[in-house]
């Protein structure tokens, strides 16, 4: 019986699919296509290689952050510290690259992963809502990043070659950073389908108690989700440091809202259990096309924040599964 558990929720979900679920499943893709068509009417050369390259370059760090966040949101939690961890990663890279070279490139994502392990461990063992723990973590790592960098941007000159390829390298004219991020999204999606425990995080979001009762290490799963989030935040930090030629204590902070918006607008339910990295990929594409599109139709970039806020609330309102919420706090 125990070995069957991961497949059971899938069956339960399959039988319970409603029209609304189907609409939500294809809606983000439709939004993306409509957005692209709209932008094309304003900018006929929008799908030229140069334009797409710029689009993908700006998408890479957002997508990496958003994929990381997807793991946590699948379990029904949220990690508010992820953007700050990416900022901290850029600072650590800037400090360590000159001396350590490749070592820094390996060490920084590992440390970022460990920040996730820490957050996940506190959430899992103290049984505290993840948004509070990660809010605290956000303050902790902001302070660390500010202290290490003396609150200033550190330019990376010596040792830049180690991360320079992330920005400079092109495959078929497209930036390698975005291609790697997209490839990761695809690999993870395949892993979720193929691996016997691939849907463990989905099940965490849908029926954690059932998972626990059937003998699964739910604490380990939860910590794993946060660890992956930390790891991807670290990778986003590498991309950011590479594209900005520097490390800064708040370099990645502004990506927090677009990244969360990408996750929820892609159709990942904030209540957990529904979604995956491919949905997040669609969400990230929507966010960057939206940004370019607003520019194209002449809307002031000042309105960007308002749109992120509205998108987050709107997407959550649409995708949230109210039947599984008791008291909403």
């Amino acid at each position: 019986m125990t070995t069957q558990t991961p497949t059971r929720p899938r069956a339960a979900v399959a039988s319970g699919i409603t029209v609304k679920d189907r609409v939500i499943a294809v809606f983000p893709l439709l939004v993306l296509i409509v957005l692209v068509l709209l932008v094309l009417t304003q900018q006929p050369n929008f799908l030229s290689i140069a334009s797409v390259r710029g689009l993908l370059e700006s998408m890479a760090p957002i997508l990496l952050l958003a994929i990381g966040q997807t793991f946590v949101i699948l379990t029904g939690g949220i990690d508010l510290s992820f953007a700050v961890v990416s900022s901290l990663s850029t600072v650590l890279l800037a400090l360590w690259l000159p001396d350590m070279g490749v070592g820094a490139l390996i060490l920084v994502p590992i440390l970022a992963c460990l920040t996730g392990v820490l957050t996940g461990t506190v959430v899992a063992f103290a049984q505290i809502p993840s948004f509070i723990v990660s809010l605290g973590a956000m303050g902790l790592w902001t302070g660390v990043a500010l202290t290490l960098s003396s609150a200033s941007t550190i330019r990376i000159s010596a040792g830049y070659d180690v991360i320079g390829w992330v920005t400079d390298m092109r495959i078929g004219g497209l930036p390698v950073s975005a291609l790697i991020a997209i490839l990761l999204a695809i690999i993870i999606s395949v892993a979720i389908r193929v691996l016997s425990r691939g849907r463990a995080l989905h099940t965490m979001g849908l029926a954690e108690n059932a998972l626990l009762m059937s003998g699964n290490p739910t604490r380990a799963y939860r910590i794993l989700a946060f660890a992956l989030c930390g790891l991807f935040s670290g990778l986003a930090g590498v991309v950011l440091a590479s594209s900005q030629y520097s490390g800064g204590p708040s370099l990645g902070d502004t990506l927090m809202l677009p990244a969360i918006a990408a996750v929820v607008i892609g159709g990942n339910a904030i209540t957990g259990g529904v979604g995956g990295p491919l949905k997040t990929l669609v969400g990230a594409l929507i966010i960057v096309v939206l940004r370019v599109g607003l520019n194209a139709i002449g809307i002031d970039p000042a309105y960007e924040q308002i749109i992120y806020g509205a998108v987050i609330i709107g997407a959550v309102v649409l995708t949230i599964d109210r039947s599984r919420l008791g008291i909403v706090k």
Partner: protein
Amino acid sequence: MSQSGPQVADSPATGTPSRASSPTPPDPTAPSGFARVRGLIGGGGPAVALVVLIAFFSIATPNFFSVSNASSLLSQLSILLVISIGLTFVILLGSLDLSVEGVMASSSLVFVLLAANDRNDLSLGFVALIAGVLTGSLFGLLNGVLHVYLKVPSFMVTLGTGAIGVGLATVLFGGRAPRLMDDGLRGLGFGNVGIFPKLALIAILVLIVALLVQKFTRVGRYGYAIGGDEPVVRLSGVNVERYKVLSFVLAGTGSGIAGVMAAMQLGVGDVSIGAGFQFTAITAVVLGGTALVGGIGGVGKTLVGAAIITVLANGLILLGVNPYVQISVQGLVIVVAVVATGWSLRKRVRAIK
């Protein structure tokens, strides 16, 4: 659950510091004056910590215990206190408001742009002040309605509305900070009366009103009960939705007042006028003894929490400690405080999001 909501609601002022650490129930007989104060600000931990901190910094630094530093302490405390007081009403529900910085930005700009300023020809005087505060209330109303009626977790709603607030402020800001030219309005919040900063007088006024609201109005009393055990309150026929929305309106109003106060103090409206306050305010509320799970705490306790944060920030700077370390410490404080209050409530089989 050892304590149900209504019991907590009956004795907010006499105070139950924490479910875990107070095995003896509060004395039901009429408390003495001292006990009354103790109940209000929360006896024990936080108050003692505040006194110890003040004593420590007075000895450790020559400049801490002086009239001029007391005045600057009060001034630093004022805006934080007003935000934290508003936030207390929401945290008592077990919810959270993450829109503080965005709301402050919007309300400061609405206030400055409607008062005499160097951007446009408007000069609405007190109407501008009220409009600035009401901007905050409206954001609170939006938060409450979205959270309560669309059943979206409050931190998610307020993350979104906070971004909307920053966006709105960015649009109003238009590239250059508008200056407040109405000397009458500026004078309300800038400068001192004797050694008392005017901002502190406003904060005291807000504190008194908040204490009255907490003790004598339904939104104040039901807040405890809803945070303690919402289903029971609902079953007893209380319109839970209404009082939850009202609590969010109170929090938004607090941020609105804080935005206007900051604009008076600095003489400009600014997008980043609330930067850093969100985090500090949550820490202040939690440090004071209001539990993030809801149902326990109060405005008086928040005063102590905000005072601890302010004394700590001021004293550590006088000692020459790197101010950025304080942000880290605040982050740790939030987590440790929540872990400590929640540790005994852990269950072996429990799904926590």
